[in-house]
């Protein structure tokens, strides 16, 4: 399973699993959970953090945070 941080610009994916730690609750509150579609939108000038389109809004995550999220790439 690829991880969210490996997505290329504009690539679409569906979240399959989030490893459980202190961040997963925060992600859950914000609607970031298995089954949701997530698209990589772009990166900050230094490549990190990364911006994603999740549902109707833009979510920014650091690479190391995106690493905890497993996705399935959708074509």
């Amino acid at each position, binding site marked *: 399973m690829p991880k969210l941080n490996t997505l290329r610009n504009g690539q679409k994916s569906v979240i399959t699993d989030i490893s*459980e*730690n*202190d*961040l*997963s*609750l*925060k*992600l*859950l*509150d*914000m*609607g970031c*959970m298995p089954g949701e579609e997530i698209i990589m*939108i*772009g*990166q*900050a*000038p*230094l*490549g*990190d*953090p990364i*911006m994603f*389109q999740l*549902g*109707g*809004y*833009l*979510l*920014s*995550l*650091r690479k190391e*945070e995106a690493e905890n999220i497993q996705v399935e790439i959708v074509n």
Partner: protein
Amino acid sequence: MNAASSKSKKQLRKIALVGNPNSGKSTLFNLLTGLNQKVGNFPGVTVEKKTGKCQLDNEEIEIIDLPGTYSLHPKSIDEEVTLSVVCDPANKYYPDITIIVADASNLKRNLLLCTQVIDLKRPCILALNMMDLVRENKIEINTALLSQELGIPIIAMNARNNEGIKELKNLLKENIAAPNKCFFDVATLNINFLQELKGLIKVENNYLAHLIFLHHHAIPSIEHNNEITERIKLVSKNEKIDKGRLQAQETIIRYKNINSIIQTCVVDERKIKADKLTQKLDAILTHKVWGFASFLALLFLIFQFIFSFSAYPMEWIEQGFALLSDAVKNHFPKGAVNDLVTEGIISGLGGIFVFIPQIAFLFAFIAILEDTGYMARVSFILDRIMRKFGLNGRSVIPLISGAACAVPAVMSTRTISNWKERIITILVIPLISCSARLPVYTLIIALVIPQKKLWGLINYQGLVLFSLYLIGFSAAIFSAYIFKMILKSKERSYFIMEMPVYRAPRWGTVVLTMIEKIKVFLFDVGKVIISISIVLWVLSSYAPGNRFEKIEKKYENSDNAENIIASEKLEASYAGIFGKAIEPVIKPLGFDWKIGIALITSFAAREVFVGTMATIYSVGTDDESSLRQKMQQDKNQNGEKIYTLATGVSLLLFYVFAMQCMSTIAVVYRESGHWKWPLIQFLYMGALAYFSSLIAYQLLA
């Protein structure tokens, strides 16, 4: 609750606003209350509390704006405040009606909090905000059906252009029934203890009891009851309650229910859900090269703007006060009272009012950056760099707010959940030049930097001002790096943040922010300045023993000696004695005893420097030229000008670095919970100030 209703009828009905960050909660609050609002702190914590009054036909109601949150399960101290208000009938602000403000273009995520509030089964309204975005994106929301599904009244609105505000006010006049739908049944969690707890805390509602069970520490009236908290802790331990797991279970069930509601009530056929304008702007503003370039260019423009445009109104204010002082002096009988009014109070007041234009511009810019959504991008593009220095992308907003005032900036670090990052941010914030330094900078820059333009375009004075801010910022970053090396922590740092869509700024919000900040400056800061001005006037107008008489006697027979007498008297006065006492220490920095007095008083607040100078220089002189001119003409015993380039630069650097603000020291103590931190801050900043001034003066003189 009986206690509340049996109180006098005069008690206003309370309406609380809750909602996700970026849902337009504050806009709605401004619309409902207008200028009729009060900003303060929640008791015991330094989370900003905004309350205001709103007039419905013949009833006045009280509105409270609660910190934005995605869920009633708090993840930060701000969010705990929201919980403590909506979940505690004993709270002073416990609402009669809760308005849930939701971003309609982002309904699903906003409904999480909404269903939680509904489950408390207290009267509530859903304010479906940002309907313009919904229409723009051709999303269809069947609000009647949604209202039926949620079991609460809904108002579709667009707070940005007043749409729906009338309907909301009309609805508030009516009697709103408590909802009876349930979106998450706590009973499915099988916590037997809840029944017992409901009895202990005298609560009927299951979900409320559940929230109190999980987050009792956030609710003061429960936390103060040892018996209950001990019992809760014991049960949690014995039954091995995993709070995280319980929250996760709840959130997943809620989202499941929300999904089925959305499916019946919302038609959203967008293929790409992104906002087009936002995409285009982000392509530039978060671009590898243009992202940083545009950020720096914007900052530079703001400072040029503040400096050049506020020059005119500042001049008018200066002249106005000079005229006023003159008029009072000539029209009222001469004497000590006249002197106190004209030399102490009016000159002190003038010293405060003159900075209103700059403060207004600065806060207007900060408000615009926040309101357009750009501030979040600043955090985004700088997070990586900030992290290297032990800070967080979220530190950027406190640091930039620090350019206005360190006190609210230190308070705003509460959104940084990592302890180490937060304490480092707090430690370095006061190095960012705040608006209180602006008066000092302006005065000294005007004294020692020529009013010329580089290549006929760039204002030299503006350039120097910009460099001062840059020096402060660099020092902050550099110090953060040192603290990162020294402080130890194992806690995880994160940057999970919503990026709002770009929107045009609302001028109403900008103006309200400006007025609010000017009010705070005039009343809170002004009080300190005026009292110090008066104390100073007394100290500089009186001397121990018969020193003044001696001086008068000395020049008894010489004509035109008024100015010499005045300056000798000042030197002999109590203020002069203080200044002289510290002169040996500050002489290597190029400061005389007059500056010494101002440095001492500046420890109350930096902007007092100007008031002090105004008082010192107006004592005993009759000509009403401005303070700047008087300082420019001031000479030392050898007939050399005091305010040379070297002294000016040295003084500027001292003010860039030194920790001269009692309010900041107090707020850092409150936020860090230990005297250790403000002390460390005071010492390292003081050392930085002294040695940089020393080096600068020795090199330039």
